[in-house]
């Protein structure tokens, strides 16, 4: 690929990505009221998720959620 075409493509991608990320203004730390709510956590009830994932793991073929994985079961 010609150097200036590569540069153009890189700039287009970088600018596109940066502008997409800032398509609306970036969210400032003091504007995070809604994101701080309990119901906006990735896992609001982690104890329940643990039990739920355990049940699914023992009756399904896949290993479950993202995060550290390990053995612990003769069932899969």
């Amino acid at each position: 690929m010609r150097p200036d075409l590569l540069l153009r493509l890189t700039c287009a991608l970088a600018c596109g990505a940066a502008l997409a990320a800032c398509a609306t203004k970036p969210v400032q730390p003091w504007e995070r009221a809604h994101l701080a709510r309990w119901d906006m956590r990735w896992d609001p009830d982690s104890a329940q998720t643990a039990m739920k994932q355990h049940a699914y793991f023992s009756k399904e073929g896949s290993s479950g959620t993202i995060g550290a994985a390990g053995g612990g079961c003769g069932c899969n």
Partner: protein
Amino acid sequence: MSSHASNSPAAKPVPRPRRAAVAMLAAAMLLAAGIGHAVGVGERAPDFRLPQLGKDAPLGLADLHGKIVFVDFWASWCSPCREAMPQYEKLRASLPGDGFAILAVNVDETRADAEKFLAAHPVGYAIVLDPAGEVPKAYGLVGMPTSYLIDRNGVVRWRGQGFKSVDIDTLRQEIDKLTKEPVHAS
């Protein structure tokens, strides 16, 4: 990268597409960097004046010149503030005289949220309201909560990101040190 020979060598002005691309990239990066610069230790604390909760007259940093001021940015949704603010109140109450003042800037969009929080965690120091978020922007806050200890000459001498209980001891030591320093004419 490219195996093709580059275009002609030698003195040639930077082609327009390249200049435009660089300008766009710079603009995008500035946008991405967010608002301006984060105020740090050793810098002058930007002045502000905001409406005060429970009082008619607004309050600003300039009104407190000559005192050691602790500026704390907080919100009702900020969970460390539940622990932090009562501790700041205890610190303030334990220091003699009126050479030290706390100025807490609330950034809740709704005043009622701030009042509800204060009903549950009452404090005796000044609370000012900035729902538009202009003052945190001026200070270049990168997280919530953030607090600044400002000396009697209006210079930031300590900045706290978040809250840890050890901060109270650190603040006590800093305030003690700053009390001994001279005041320059403003």
